[in-house]
């Protein structure tokens, strides 16, 4: 994991001091609320429905044991004893006092964490694959490049007041777990014919009110040109992005308006000036960044023997077997596995985790996974480097702390934004819908039979719950002051990204689980042996789902 040097510490300390001064000036009335607004946002602080919300970055999802303990401490001392893992791998505190935020940031800086640019119209935290560095399908570890981007984007003097927020995601695997196609910039790492490392650059993807899949503007960007090219993209956007209408201000609207080809030309023209400037990455810097993400001290293990003893254990213990099946994935290193701690047990808001649980994760990480953990955009936590021979002990510990729900990638591992219970932008509550669904589909054999399904819920069209890319997406809408829900089908966040389509008119909360049941029925009745939910939908199209859910409308035709 990246470790700060004296420069990183100094820059961050100066930022905390700057924000302390800004907060004091706001509290004494010297700084107007509208002036304080972007400053607090760029330090992670929203004002929510009931209280401020502080969003702390987890750069590309990597977090270590001391950081987890610090988050637990902050949750206990300054908040109500729990935090929320966001759909962009970050950590949110729901109840801090505004006047204490500078103290919180100072405490976080001690463990090399920050809330820099986690909100506001600026370059946000760069996200990545939660299995970076360990996935079987990965060709290049994206994390060193994410860290290079983190440093470049932090306090970038030219791009702190963009038309709108700006999100970058990087993946180095063939299976896209970072949703790069729905980011302002998506970077897919690859090697060219000569074996050199570079990026395929997508631009203008995004969810929200106008969901768009990103367009490829450069087939291969050599690694040393990463920052100069990003500067060029941001510079074009900063000059030409729409600033009159906030709903048209994202880069996706600009790219669509002038066409991806013209946008690409403008970027190339700008980049020609910057390409060979001092911003060009040096091999020394790339090597330095890589040096922080080397393999931990893996033991050399007999993978076959490890698997055999696991198989023996599962023979007597079905529950353990289910957990292995759903929550554990193969590792690139023999005898090791990556495990996902489920933060989606029924009865808890998806992604919520308490101070005690955070400390338990820190302990488990130290005991079983080289002291590191990863947050995921599905709002779970991964321990990336666990010996297979430790899995049974780890599973028992997970049960004790409530992380062992064997539901990863199933219907009940749903993604859900905080919605109307917390968020002032919401049209409707989202957490009760998640709870209804988890309770209605509590028969795990049924859920396993359904297989992999992404069900994503957002409380409004801002799409923090990524409902557009859920196989089933649910979005809260406001109908004359009442909370209603639209259901979408056919979205997908992975390699074959697609955007869901609304089935039809919206539903009341109490109708939603019934609608989901009908959707699942159609799948179960029609699937072929090898089809997952999304495949059947893609084959059948919307019509049968529509006919089942709105029979009267069909008759009237």
């Amino acid at each position, binding site marked *: 994991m990246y470790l700060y040097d004296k420069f990183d510490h100094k820059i961050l300390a100066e930022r905390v001091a700057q924000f302390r001064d800004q907060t004091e000036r706001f509290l004494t009335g010297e700084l107007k609320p509208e002036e304080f607004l972007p400053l607090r946002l760029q330090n992670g602080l929203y004002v929510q429905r009931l209280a401020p919300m502080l969003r702390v970055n987890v750069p590309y999802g990597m977090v270590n044991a001391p950081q987890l303990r610090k988050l637990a401490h902050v949750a206990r001392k300054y908040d109500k004893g729990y935090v929320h893992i966001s759909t962009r791998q970050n950590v949110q505190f729901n109840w801090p006092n505004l006047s204490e935020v500078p103290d919180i940031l100072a405490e976080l800086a001690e463990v090399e964490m920050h809330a820099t640019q986690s909100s506001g119209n600026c370059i946000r935290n760069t996200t990545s694959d939660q299995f970076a560095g360990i996935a079987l399908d990965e060709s290049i570890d994206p994390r060193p490049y994410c860290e290079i981007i983190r*440093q470049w984007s932090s306090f970038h003097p030219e791009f702190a007041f963009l038309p709108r927020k700006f999100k970058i995601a990087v993946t180095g695997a063939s299976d896209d777990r970072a949703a790069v196609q729905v980011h302002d910039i998506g970077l897919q790492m690859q090697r060219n014919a000569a074996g050199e490392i570079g990026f395929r650059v997508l631009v203008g993807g995004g969810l929200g009110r106008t969901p768009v899949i990103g367009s490829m503007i450069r087939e291969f960007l050599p690694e040393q040109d990463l920052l100069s090219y990003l500067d060029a993209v941001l510079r074009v956007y900063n000059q030409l992005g729409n600033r009159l209408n906030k709903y048209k201000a994202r880069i996706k609207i600009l790219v669509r308006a002038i066409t991806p080809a013209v946008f690409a030309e403008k970027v190339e023209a700008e980049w020609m000036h910057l390409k060979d400037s001092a911003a060009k990455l040096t091999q020394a810097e790339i090597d330095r960044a890589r040096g922080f993400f080397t393999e931990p001290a893996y033991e050399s293990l007999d993978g076959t023997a490890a698997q055999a003893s696991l198989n023996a254990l599962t023979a007597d213990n079905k529950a353990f077997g289910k957990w292995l099946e759903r929550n554990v994935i193969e590792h690139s290193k023999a005898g090791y596995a990556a495990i996902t701690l489920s933060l989606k047990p029924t009865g808890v808001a998806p992604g919520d985790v308490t101070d005690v649980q955070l400390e338990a994760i820190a302990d488990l990480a130290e005991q079983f996974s080289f002291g590191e953990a990863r947050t995921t955009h599905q709002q779970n936590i991964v321990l990336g480097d666990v010996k297979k021979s430790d899995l049974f002990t780890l599973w028992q510990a997970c049960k004790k702390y409530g992380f062992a729900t064997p539901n990863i990638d199933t219907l009940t591992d749903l993604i859900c934004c905080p919605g109307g219970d917390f968020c002032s932008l919401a049209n409707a509550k989202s957490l009760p819908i998640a709870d209804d669904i988890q309770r209605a589909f509590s028969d795990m054999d049924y859920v396993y039979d359904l297989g992999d399904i992404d069900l994503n819920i957002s409380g409004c069209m801002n799409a923090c719950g990524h409902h557009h890319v859920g196989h089933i997406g649910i979005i809260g809408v406001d109908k004359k002051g009442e909370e209603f829900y639209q259901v979408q089908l056919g979205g997908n966040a992975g390699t074959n990204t697609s955007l869901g389509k609304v089935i039809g008119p919206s539903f009341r909360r109490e109708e939603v689980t019934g609608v989901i049941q009908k959707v699942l029925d159609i799948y179960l009745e029609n699937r072929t042996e090898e089809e997952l939910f999304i495949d059947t939908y893609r084959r059948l199209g919307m019509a049968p789902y529509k006919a089942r859910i709105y029979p009267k409308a069909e008759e009237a035709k």
Partner: protein
Amino acid sequence: MMSKLIKDGAIVANEWQLLDKPESASAAVPAGKVIVHLSVWLEQKDTLISRSDIGVWLDNVDTADLLGSDAQQLPLVAVNFPVFMDGRGFTAARLLRERYGFEGELRAIGNFIRDQLCYLKRCGVNAFACSDEINMEAALASLNDFSESYQVAIDTPLPLFRRRA
């Protein structure tokens, strides 16, 4: 208007008069040190070029390339911030310095706030026509909010990764 000025890290008197954008770009330009809008400069540069007391200001919608290397012939270029949230001026300033070779006084005008000074400075702005609401001493101090930074910028020709050791 423009009563207070920070220039090159000191509080100094402002000697320049800022002229609004006229309806017609061919409107007469008065004598004395004046800052005219880009449109006036573009329309009248054949005559204005002989004067040494002409500055040009760019509005938020005016990209730096519209003035381009004309800037090299001017003692002063100003970048306007009609609202502080509009960050186009940061790019305009930087381009004037690094692309168009402008070495004169680069002045921020309009409604920027004190908390933007340190970033403006990094983008090459060396003079700040502060509104009356800005506390000048504090604004001066804020130029040094950061003593170190990661990126290449006008004040830091080498990024941190080329200086780290």
